[in-house]
Protein backbone atom coordinates (compact mmCIF):
# COMPACT_ATOMS: atom_id res chain seq x y z
CA UNK A 1 0.00 0.00 0.00
CA UNK A 2 1.31 3.38 -0.94
CA UNK A 3 -0.56 5.23 1.73
CA UNK A 4 0.51 6.39 5.12
CA UNK A 5 -1.13 4.91 8.19
CA UNK A 6 -1.72 7.78 10.60
CA UNK A 7 -1.27 5.56 13.61
CA UNK A 8 -2.03 8.22 16.18
CA UNK A 9 -5.50 8.66 14.73
CA UNK A 10 -6.46 5.00 15.01
CA UNK A 11 -9.02 4.06 17.63
CA UNK A 12 -8.88 0.35 17.04
CA UNK A 13 -12.48 -0.01 15.99
CA UNK A 14 -11.61 -2.76 13.52
CA UNK A 15 -13.90 -1.60 10.72
CA UNK A 16 -11.06 -1.49 8.20
CA UNK A 17 -10.00 -5.02 9.06
CA UNK A 18 -13.56 -6.26 8.71
CA UNK A 19 -14.20 -4.63 5.35
CA UNK A 20 -10.84 -5.10 3.64
CA UNK A 21 -11.69 -7.51 0.82
CA UNK A 22 -8.14 -8.84 0.67
CA UNK A 23 -7.69 -9.41 4.39
CA UNK A 24 -4.59 -7.25 4.36
CA UNK A 25 -5.10 -5.66 7.74
CA UNK A 26 -4.71 -6.90 11.31
CA UNK A 27 -4.34 -5.42 14.78
CA UNK A 28 -0.73 -5.07 15.81
CA UNK A 29 0.35 -5.39 19.42
CA UNK A 30 1.44 -1.78 19.54
CA UNK A 31 -0.67 0.88 21.21
CA UNK A 32 -0.74 4.55 20.30
CA UNK A 33 -0.73 7.45 22.70
CA UNK A 34 -4.48 7.33 22.99
CA UNK A 35 -4.02 3.77 24.24
CA UNK A 36 -5.61 2.02 21.28
CA UNK A 37 -4.23 -1.00 19.47
CA UNK A 38 -2.93 0.13 16.11
CA UNK A 39 -3.90 -1.42 12.82
CA UNK A 40 -1.12 -2.83 10.69
CA UNK A 41 -0.73 -4.23 7.18
CA UNK A 42 -0.01 -7.88 7.70
CA UNK A 43 0.04 -8.67 4.00
CA UNK A 44 0.77 -5.45 2.12
CA UNK A 45 1.45 -7.39 -1.03
CA UNK A 46 -2.18 -8.52 -1.16
CA UNK A 47 -3.52 -4.95 -1.15
CA UNK A 48 -5.28 -3.95 -4.37
CA UNK A 49 -5.64 -0.27 -3.49
CA UNK A 50 -9.39 -0.56 -3.52
CA UNK A 51 -9.72 2.21 -0.94
CA UNK A 52 -12.28 0.47 1.17
CA UNK A 53 -10.21 0.93 4.30
CA UNK A 54 -10.15 4.67 3.63
CA UNK A 55 -13.89 4.68 3.01
CA UNK A 56 -14.80 2.83 6.17
CA UNK A 57 -12.30 4.23 8.64
CA UNK A 58 -14.06 6.72 10.91
CA UNK A 59 -10.74 8.28 11.86
CA UNK A 60 -9.17 8.98 8.43
CA UNK A 61 -6.16 6.84 9.21
CA UNK A 62 -5.30 5.71 5.67
CA UNK A 63 -4.16 8.64 3.56
CA UNK A 64 -1.73 9.65 0.87
CA UNK A 65 1.14 11.37 2.53
CA UNK A 66 0.95 14.55 0.47
CA UNK A 67 -2.72 14.99 1.23
CA UNK A 68 -2.09 15.03 4.97
CA UNK A 69 1.00 17.16 4.92
CA UNK A 70 -0.63 19.93 2.93
CA UNK B 1 -9.55 26.42 70.46
CA UNK B 2 -6.97 24.43 72.29
CA UNK B 3 -9.66 21.85 73.07
CA UNK B 4 -10.29 21.27 69.40
CA UNK B 5 -6.67 20.89 68.48
CA UNK B 6 -5.91 18.46 71.23
CA UNK B 7 -8.09 15.66 69.96
CA UNK B 8 -6.29 14.36 66.91
CA UNK B 9 -9.02 13.80 64.38
CA UNK B 10 -8.83 10.98 61.91
CA UNK B 11 -9.16 12.34 58.41
CA UNK B 12 -7.99 10.79 55.14
CA UNK B 13 -7.96 12.92 52.03
CA UNK B 14 -7.25 10.84 48.96
CA UNK B 15 -7.16 11.72 45.29
CA UNK B 16 -7.25 8.95 42.69
CA UNK B 17 -6.23 9.95 39.20
CA UNK B 18 -5.65 8.28 35.83
CA UNK B 19 -7.02 7.56 32.37
CA UNK B 20 -10.73 7.15 31.84
CA UNK B 21 -10.43 3.38 31.38
CA UNK B 22 -8.40 2.69 34.50
CA UNK B 23 -11.29 2.44 36.92
CA UNK B 24 -10.42 5.59 38.81
CA UNK B 25 -13.99 6.56 39.64
CA UNK B 26 -14.96 2.99 40.48
CA UNK B 27 -12.24 2.58 43.04
CA UNK B 28 -12.89 6.02 44.52
CA UNK B 29 -16.54 5.25 44.89
CA UNK B 30 -15.71 1.83 46.33
CA UNK B 31 -13.43 3.13 49.03
CA UNK B 32 -15.97 5.79 49.98
CA UNK B 33 -18.66 3.14 50.29
CA UNK B 34 -16.47 0.84 52.31
CA UNK B 35 -15.50 3.80 54.43
CA UNK B 36 -19.17 4.52 55.10
CA UNK B 37 -19.78 0.90 56.10
CA UNK B 38 -16.79 1.15 58.40
CA UNK B 39 -18.46 4.10 60.12
CA UNK B 40 -16.57 7.00 58.65
CA UNK B 41 -18.11 10.17 57.40
CA UNK B 42 -17.24 10.11 53.73
CA UNK B 43 -17.46 12.08 50.55
CA UNK B 44 -16.66 11.18 46.97
CA UNK B 45 -16.31 13.86 44.34
CA UNK B 46 -15.67 12.78 40.76
CA UNK B 47 -14.26 15.21 38.23
CA UNK B 48 -14.46 14.34 34.59
CA UNK B 49 -11.94 15.86 32.27
CA UNK B 50 -12.93 18.30 29.59
CA UNK B 51 -13.23 15.52 27.05
CA UNK B 52 -16.56 13.80 26.84
CA UNK B 53 -15.06 10.44 25.98
CA UNK B 54 -11.73 9.13 27.21
CA UNK B 55 -9.29 11.63 28.62
CA UNK B 56 -8.12 11.78 32.20
CA UNK B 57 -10.29 11.90 35.23
CA UNK B 58 -9.81 12.05 38.93
CA UNK B 59 -11.80 11.92 42.11
CA UNK B 60 -11.43 13.12 45.65
CA UNK B 61 -12.39 10.82 48.52
CA UNK B 62 -12.56 12.00 52.10
CA UNK B 63 -12.91 9.67 55.09
CA UNK B 64 -13.21 11.32 58.45
CA UNK B 65 -14.53 10.73 61.93
CA UNK B 66 -15.90 14.28 61.94
CA UNK B 67 -18.45 16.02 59.77
CA UNK B 68 -17.09 16.70 56.31
CA UNK B 69 -17.68 20.21 55.09
CA UNK B 70 -15.82 20.64 51.83
CA UNK B 71 -15.64 17.62 49.53
CA UNK B 72 -12.82 19.42 47.72
CA UNK B 73 -9.33 19.63 49.07
CA UNK B 74 -6.34 21.28 47.48
CA UNK B 75 -3.63 19.44 49.43
CA UNK B 76 -4.57 15.82 49.95
CA UNK B 77 -2.66 13.60 52.33
CA UNK B 78 -2.75 10.67 49.92
CA UNK B 79 -2.54 10.21 46.19
CA UNK B 80 -3.12 7.18 44.01
CA UNK B 81 -1.63 7.89 40.60
CA UNK B 82 -2.24 5.69 37.60
CA UNK B 83 -0.52 7.59 34.78
CA UNK B 84 2.00 10.28 33.96
CA UNK B 85 -0.30 13.29 33.39
CA UNK B 86 -1.86 12.61 36.76
CA UNK B 87 1.55 12.48 38.39
CA UNK B 88 2.49 15.84 36.99
CA UNK B 89 -0.82 17.40 37.92
CA UNK B 90 -1.23 16.13 41.47
CA UNK B 91 2.19 15.54 43.02
CA UNK B 92 2.68 19.32 43.48
CA UNK B 93 -0.57 19.37 45.43
CA UNK B 94 0.36 16.53 47.78
CA UNK B 95 0.70 17.65 51.41
CA UNK B 96 4.16 17.93 52.92
CA UNK B 97 4.85 14.49 54.27
CA UNK B 98 1.99 13.06 52.25
CA UNK B 99 2.08 9.67 50.57
CA UNK B 100 1.62 8.89 46.90
CA UNK B 101 1.11 5.41 45.47
CA UNK B 102 2.32 5.63 41.89
CA UNK B 103 1.86 3.15 39.05
CA UNK B 104 5.42 2.48 38.11
CA UNK B 105 4.41 0.69 34.90
CA UNK B 106 3.14 3.92 33.32
CA UNK B 107 5.08 6.57 35.19
CA UNK B 108 8.79 6.55 34.61
CA UNK B 109 11.04 8.66 36.76
CA UNK B 110 13.23 9.33 33.73
CA UNK B 111 10.36 11.16 32.04
CA UNK B 112 9.83 13.55 34.89
CA UNK B 113 11.64 16.84 34.89
CA UNK B 114 12.84 18.17 38.25
CA UNK B 115 11.81 14.98 39.93
CA UNK B 116 13.75 15.75 43.09
CA UNK B 117 12.26 19.17 43.75
CA UNK B 118 8.82 17.94 42.81
CA UNK B 119 8.89 15.18 45.37
CA UNK B 120 10.84 16.81 48.15
CA UNK B 121 9.29 16.07 51.54
CA UNK B 122 6.81 13.69 49.94
CA UNK B 123 6.70 9.93 50.22
CA UNK B 124 6.40 8.14 46.91
CA UNK B 125 5.66 4.44 46.81
CA UNK B 126 6.28 2.99 43.37
CA UNK B 127 4.00 0.05 42.59
CA UNK B 128 3.97 -1.96 39.35
CA UNK B 129 0.17 -1.92 39.17
CA UNK B 130 -0.21 -3.08 35.56
CA UNK B 131 2.27 -5.86 36.13
CA UNK B 132 0.44 -7.08 39.22
CA UNK B 133 -2.89 -6.92 37.46
CA UNK B 134 -1.58 -8.81 34.47
CA UNK B 135 0.10 -11.29 36.73
CA UNK B 136 -3.24 -12.38 38.12
CA UNK B 137 -4.77 -12.38 34.63
CA UNK B 138 -6.91 -9.29 35.22
CA UNK B 139 -5.17 -6.56 33.24
CA UNK B 140 -7.99 -4.09 33.88
CA UNK B 141 -8.10 -4.53 37.65
CA UNK B 142 -5.11 -2.36 38.49
CA UNK B 143 -7.42 -0.07 40.40
CA UNK B 144 -8.28 -2.83 42.85
CA UNK B 145 -4.61 -3.72 43.17
CA UNK B 146 -3.98 -0.13 44.17
CA UNK B 147 -6.80 -0.24 46.69
CA UNK B 148 -5.37 -3.39 48.26
CA UNK B 149 -2.02 -1.69 48.61
CA UNK B 150 -3.56 1.46 50.04
CA UNK B 151 -5.67 -0.40 52.58
CA UNK B 152 -2.73 -2.45 53.70
CA UNK B 153 -0.88 0.78 54.38
CA UNK B 154 -3.72 2.69 56.06
CA UNK B 155 -5.77 -0.11 57.58
CA UNK B 156 -9.04 1.66 56.80
CA UNK B 157 -11.37 -1.34 56.95
CA UNK B 158 -11.29 -5.13 57.10
CA UNK B 159 -11.83 -7.27 54.04
CA UNK B 160 -15.43 -8.18 54.95
CA UNK B 161 -16.36 -4.53 54.69
CA UNK B 162 -14.66 -4.28 51.34
CA UNK B 163 -16.54 -7.33 50.12
CA UNK B 164 -19.82 -5.83 51.24
CA UNK B 165 -19.05 -2.61 49.39
CA UNK B 166 -17.86 -4.45 46.30
CA UNK B 167 -21.03 -6.53 46.21
CA UNK B 168 -23.09 -3.39 46.36
CA UNK B 169 -21.09 -1.65 43.65
CA UNK B 170 -21.13 -4.57 41.25
CA UNK B 171 -24.84 -5.12 41.56
CA UNK B 172 -26.61 -8.25 40.46
CA UNK B 173 -25.47 -8.12 36.88
CA UNK B 174 -21.76 -7.90 37.51
CA UNK B 175 -21.63 -9.96 40.68
CA UNK B 176 -19.72 -12.72 38.86
CA UNK B 177 -16.80 -10.29 38.76
CA UNK B 178 -16.60 -10.20 42.56
CA UNK B 179 -13.98 -12.92 42.90
CA UNK B 180 -11.72 -11.46 40.24
CA UNK B 181 -11.86 -8.01 41.82
CA UNK B 182 -11.15 -9.45 45.19
CA UNK B 183 -8.20 -11.32 43.82
CA UNK B 184 -6.76 -8.07 42.52
CA UNK B 185 -7.39 -6.39 45.86
CA UNK B 186 -5.62 -9.15 47.68
CA UNK B 187 -2.75 -9.04 45.23
CA UNK B 188 -2.09 -5.42 46.06
CA UNK B 189 -2.62 -6.03 49.75
CA UNK B 190 -0.26 -8.96 49.85
CA UNK B 191 2.42 -7.37 47.73
CA UNK B 192 2.63 -4.47 50.15
CA UNK B 193 2.49 -6.85 53.09
CA UNK B 194 5.42 -8.75 51.66
CA UNK B 195 7.27 -5.56 50.97
CA UNK B 196 6.71 -4.28 54.49
CA UNK B 197 7.81 -7.48 56.10
CA UNK B 198 10.85 -7.46 53.82
CA UNK B 199 11.59 -4.04 55.27
CA UNK B 200 11.18 -5.32 58.80
CA UNK B 201 13.42 -8.23 58.09
CA UNK B 202 16.23 -6.24 56.60
Amino acid at each position, binding site marked *: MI*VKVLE*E*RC*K*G*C*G*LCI*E*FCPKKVLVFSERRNQ*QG*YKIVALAFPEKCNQC*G*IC*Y*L*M*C*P*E*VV*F*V*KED*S*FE*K | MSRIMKKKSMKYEIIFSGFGGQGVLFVGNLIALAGMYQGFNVSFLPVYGP*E*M*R*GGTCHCTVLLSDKEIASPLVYEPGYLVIFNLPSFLKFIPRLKRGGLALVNKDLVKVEEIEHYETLCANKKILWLPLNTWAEAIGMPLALNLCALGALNKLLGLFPEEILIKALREMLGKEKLPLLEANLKAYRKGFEEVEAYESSLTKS
Partner: protein
Amino acid sequence: MSQLFRFPQSLKKTLFHYCPGCHHSLIHRLLCEVIDELGIREKTVGIASIGCSCFLYFYIDVDIVEAPHGRACSAATGIKRARPDLLVFTYQGDGDFAAIGLGDSLHSASRGEKFTVLMINNTLYGMTGGQVSPTTPLCQKTTTTPLGRDPQVHGYPMKIAEMLGNFEGVALSARVAVNNPKRVLSAKEVLKKAFLYQREAKGFTYVEFLSACPVNWKMDPLSATKYVDKLTEIFPLGTFKDIG
Protein backbone atom coordinates in the same frame (compact mmCIF):
# COMPACT_ATOMS: atom_id res chain seq x y z
CA MET C 1 -13.27 8.43 -6.68
CA SER C 2 -10.39 10.86 -6.89
CA GLN C 3 -10.93 11.50 -3.21
CA LEU C 4 -9.76 8.03 -2.14
CA PHE C 5 -6.89 8.20 0.33
CA ARG C 6 -6.86 11.97 0.18
CA PHE C 7 -7.09 13.61 3.58
CA PRO C 8 -9.77 16.20 2.81
CA GLN C 9 -8.54 19.77 2.58
CA SER C 10 -11.35 21.13 4.68
CA LEU C 11 -10.81 18.59 7.44
CA LYS C 12 -8.63 19.80 10.29
CA LYS C 13 -5.97 17.45 11.56
CA THR C 14 -7.21 17.46 15.12
CA LEU C 15 -7.96 14.00 16.51
CA PHE C 16 -11.67 13.31 16.81
CA HIS C 17 -13.13 13.07 20.30
CA TYR C 18 -15.70 10.51 19.22
CA CYS C 19 -15.83 6.99 20.62
CA PRO C 20 -14.22 4.17 18.61
CA GLY C 21 -16.52 3.07 15.81
CA CYS C 22 -18.71 6.16 15.99
CA HIS C 23 -19.96 7.17 12.56
CA HIS C 24 -19.99 10.88 13.33
CA SER C 25 -16.40 11.30 12.24
CA LEU C 26 -16.90 9.26 9.10
CA ILE C 27 -19.73 11.58 8.14
CA HIS C 28 -17.51 14.57 8.92
CA ARG C 29 -15.06 13.25 6.39
CA LEU C 30 -17.76 12.80 3.75
CA LEU C 31 -18.93 16.34 4.33
CA CYS C 32 -15.42 17.65 3.88
CA GLU C 33 -14.93 15.62 0.72
CA VAL C 34 -18.09 17.15 -0.72
CA ILE C 35 -17.04 20.66 0.28
CA ASP C 36 -13.66 20.08 -1.32
CA GLU C 37 -15.04 18.61 -4.49
CA LEU C 38 -17.50 21.45 -4.95
CA GLY C 39 -14.82 23.98 -4.11
CA ILE C 40 -17.12 25.83 -1.74
CA ARG C 41 -15.01 25.95 1.41
CA GLU C 42 -14.58 29.69 1.24
CA LYS C 43 -18.23 30.52 1.01
CA THR C 44 -19.65 27.97 3.37
CA VAL C 45 -20.95 28.60 6.86
CA GLY C 46 -21.83 25.67 9.08
CA ILE C 47 -24.04 25.50 12.14
CA ALA C 48 -22.89 23.22 14.94
CA SER C 49 -25.67 21.90 17.10
CA ILE C 50 -25.71 20.50 20.62
CA GLY C 51 -25.02 16.80 20.78
CA CYS C 52 -21.98 14.59 20.48
CA SER C 53 -21.01 16.62 17.42
CA CYS C 54 -21.00 19.96 19.22
CA PHE C 55 -17.27 20.25 18.62
CA LEU C 56 -17.80 20.16 14.85
CA TYR C 57 -15.75 23.34 14.59
CA PHE C 58 -12.66 21.59 15.84
CA TYR C 59 -12.75 19.38 12.77
CA ILE C 60 -14.40 21.10 9.84
CA ASP C 61 -12.31 23.95 8.51
CA VAL C 62 -15.08 26.36 7.53
CA ASP C 63 -16.72 29.25 9.37
CA ILE C 64 -18.99 27.77 12.02
CA VAL C 65 -21.39 29.11 14.58
CA GLU C 66 -22.92 27.15 17.44
CA ALA C 67 -26.70 27.16 17.80
CA PRO C 68 -28.64 26.34 20.96
CA HIS C 69 -30.02 22.81 21.22
CA GLY C 70 -32.64 22.29 18.54
CA ARG C 71 -32.29 25.71 16.94
CA ALA C 72 -29.79 25.01 14.20
CA CYS C 73 -32.41 25.34 11.44
CA SER C 74 -33.56 28.69 12.78
CA ALA C 75 -30.00 29.96 12.99
CA ALA C 76 -29.41 28.68 9.46
CA THR C 77 -32.55 30.49 8.32
CA GLY C 78 -31.20 33.71 9.78
CA ILE C 79 -27.87 33.23 8.02
CA LYS C 80 -29.28 32.24 4.67
CA ARG C 81 -31.83 35.03 4.65
CA ALA C 82 -29.21 37.59 5.53
CA ARG C 83 -26.61 36.21 3.12
CA PRO C 84 -28.24 34.11 0.38
CA ASP C 85 -24.89 33.94 -1.40
CA LEU C 86 -23.37 31.76 1.30
CA LEU C 87 -23.70 27.98 1.35
CA VAL C 88 -25.12 26.95 4.66
CA PHE C 89 -25.42 23.61 6.38
CA THR C 90 -26.54 22.40 9.77
CA TYR C 91 -25.15 19.29 11.40
CA GLN C 92 -27.67 17.90 13.88
CA GLY C 93 -28.47 14.79 15.86
CA ASP C 94 -31.85 13.12 15.91
CA GLY C 95 -32.56 14.63 19.32
CA ASP C 96 -31.55 18.07 18.20
CA PHE C 97 -33.43 18.03 14.91
CA ALA C 98 -36.46 15.97 15.78
CA ALA C 99 -37.09 16.30 19.53
CA ILE C 100 -36.54 19.80 20.87
CA GLY C 101 -35.98 21.15 17.39
CA LEU C 102 -38.96 19.63 15.58
CA GLY C 103 -40.87 22.89 15.30
CA ASP C 104 -37.86 24.84 14.05
CA SER C 105 -36.88 22.05 11.69
CA LEU C 106 -40.26 21.46 10.07
CA HIS C 107 -41.04 25.15 9.71
CA SER C 108 -37.71 25.72 7.99
CA ALA C 109 -38.52 22.84 5.66
CA SER C 110 -42.01 24.12 5.06
CA ARG C 111 -40.71 27.56 4.22
CA GLY C 112 -38.33 25.90 1.80
CA GLU C 113 -35.26 27.50 3.36
CA LYS C 114 -32.37 27.00 1.03
CA PHE C 115 -29.80 25.28 3.20
CA THR C 116 -28.68 21.71 3.76
CA VAL C 117 -29.32 19.62 6.85
CA LEU C 118 -27.14 16.68 7.83
CA MET C 119 -29.19 14.78 10.36
CA ILE C 120 -27.24 12.12 12.18
CA ASN C 121 -29.74 9.59 13.39
CA ASN C 122 -28.22 7.30 15.98
CA THR C 123 -31.67 6.69 17.49
CA LEU C 124 -30.84 8.20 20.85
CA TYR C 125 -29.17 11.05 22.72
CA GLY C 126 -25.51 10.19 22.54
CA MET C 127 -24.09 13.18 24.34
CA THR C 128 -26.21 12.98 27.46
CA GLY C 129 -25.75 9.28 27.94
CA GLY C 130 -28.19 7.40 25.76
CA GLN C 131 -31.74 8.51 26.52
CA VAL C 132 -34.71 7.71 24.29
CA SER C 133 -35.15 9.98 21.27
CA PRO C 134 -37.97 10.44 18.79
CA THR C 135 -36.26 7.93 16.50
CA THR C 136 -35.59 5.18 19.03
CA PRO C 137 -36.98 1.89 17.68
CA LEU C 138 -39.72 0.16 19.63
CA CYS C 139 -38.47 -2.12 22.40
CA GLN C 140 -34.98 -0.57 22.41
CA LYS C 141 -33.70 -0.09 25.94
CA THR C 142 -32.26 3.31 26.76
CA THR C 143 -31.38 4.98 30.04
CA THR C 144 -34.88 6.47 30.26
CA THR C 145 -36.73 3.49 28.82
CA PRO C 146 -35.28 0.86 31.12
CA LEU C 147 -37.79 -1.73 29.93
CA GLY C 148 -37.50 -0.78 26.27
CA ARG C 149 -39.47 1.75 24.28
CA ASP C 150 -43.16 1.02 24.72
CA PRO C 151 -45.30 2.81 22.12
CA GLN C 152 -48.09 3.23 24.66
CA VAL C 153 -45.76 5.19 26.90
CA HIS C 154 -43.07 6.74 24.75
CA GLY C 155 -44.83 6.81 21.41
CA TYR C 156 -43.70 5.64 18.03
CA PRO C 157 -40.41 6.26 16.26
CA MET C 158 -40.70 9.25 13.94
CA LYS C 159 -39.79 8.86 10.31
CA ILE C 160 -38.42 12.23 9.52
CA ALA C 161 -37.11 11.73 5.99
CA GLU C 162 -40.48 10.36 4.92
CA MET C 163 -42.33 13.18 6.66
CA LEU C 164 -40.22 15.81 4.94
CA GLY C 165 -40.91 14.12 1.64
CA ASN C 166 -44.43 15.51 1.87
CA PHE C 167 -43.37 19.13 2.32
CA GLU C 168 -43.72 21.43 -0.64
CA GLY C 169 -40.70 23.47 0.33
CA VAL C 170 -38.38 20.46 0.34
CA ALA C 171 -36.16 19.87 -2.70
CA LEU C 172 -34.40 16.75 -1.45
CA SER C 173 -35.11 14.37 1.39
CA ALA C 174 -33.12 11.20 1.69
CA ARG C 175 -31.95 8.64 4.20
CA VAL C 176 -28.52 7.09 3.82
CA ALA C 177 -26.16 4.97 5.86
CA VAL C 178 -22.40 4.60 6.04
CA ASN C 179 -22.09 1.06 7.36
CA ASN C 180 -20.57 -0.45 4.26
CA PRO C 181 -18.37 0.88 1.47
CA LYS C 182 -21.12 1.05 -1.14
CA ARG C 183 -23.36 2.99 1.17
CA VAL C 184 -20.56 5.36 2.04
CA LEU C 185 -20.14 6.17 -1.61
CA SER C 186 -23.79 6.67 -2.29
CA ALA C 187 -24.27 8.70 0.90
CA LYS C 188 -21.64 11.04 -0.42
CA GLU C 189 -23.39 11.36 -3.76
CA VAL C 190 -26.65 12.25 -2.06
CA LEU C 191 -24.93 14.81 0.13
CA LYS C 192 -23.27 16.35 -2.89
CA LYS C 193 -26.61 16.59 -4.61
CA ALA C 194 -28.00 18.38 -1.59
CA PHE C 195 -25.32 21.04 -1.80
CA LEU C 196 -25.81 21.34 -5.54
CA TYR C 197 -29.54 21.86 -5.07
CA GLN C 198 -28.79 24.43 -2.43
CA ARG C 199 -26.48 26.25 -4.78
CA GLU C 200 -29.29 26.32 -7.31
CA ALA C 201 -31.67 27.60 -4.58
CA LYS C 202 -34.04 24.72 -5.20
CA GLY C 203 -35.31 24.46 -1.65
CA PHE C 204 -34.71 22.70 1.63
CA THR C 205 -32.27 19.80 1.35
CA TYR C 206 -32.17 17.09 3.98
CA VAL C 207 -29.89 14.10 4.29
CA GLU C 208 -30.45 11.73 7.20
CA PHE C 209 -27.58 9.43 8.11
CA LEU C 210 -28.26 6.27 10.06
CA SER C 211 -25.29 6.34 12.37
CA ALA C 212 -23.77 3.88 14.84
CA CYS C 213 -23.38 4.76 18.50
CA PRO C 214 -21.52 1.74 19.84
CA VAL C 215 -21.18 3.12 23.36
CA ASN C 216 -24.84 3.79 24.01
CA TRP C 217 -26.01 0.81 22.01
CA LYS C 218 -23.68 -1.14 24.29
CA MET C 219 -22.08 -2.90 21.35
CA ASP C 220 -18.57 -3.20 20.03
CA PRO C 221 -17.87 -1.04 16.97
CA LEU C 222 -18.27 -3.88 14.52
CA SER C 223 -21.61 -5.09 15.86
CA ALA C 224 -22.86 -1.53 15.96
CA THR C 225 -21.93 -1.00 12.34
CA LYS C 226 -23.69 -4.25 11.45
CA TYR C 227 -26.72 -3.29 13.53
CA VAL C 228 -27.32 -0.36 11.21
CA ASP C 229 -28.52 -2.96 8.68
CA LYS C 230 -31.20 -3.93 11.15
CA LEU C 231 -32.17 -0.29 11.56
CA THR C 232 -32.81 0.02 7.85
CA GLU C 233 -35.78 -2.28 8.35
CA ILE C 234 -37.42 0.43 10.44
CA PHE C 235 -35.82 3.36 8.67
CA PRO C 236 -35.54 2.33 5.04
CA LEU C 237 -32.80 3.95 3.04
CA GLY C 238 -33.79 5.90 -0.02
CA THR C 239 -34.76 9.23 -1.45
CA PHE C 240 -38.21 10.35 -0.40
CA LYS C 241 -38.28 13.52 -2.37
CA ASP C 242 -36.10 14.80 -5.16
CA ILE C 243 -37.38 17.62 -7.28
CA GLY C 244 -34.62 16.82 -9.77
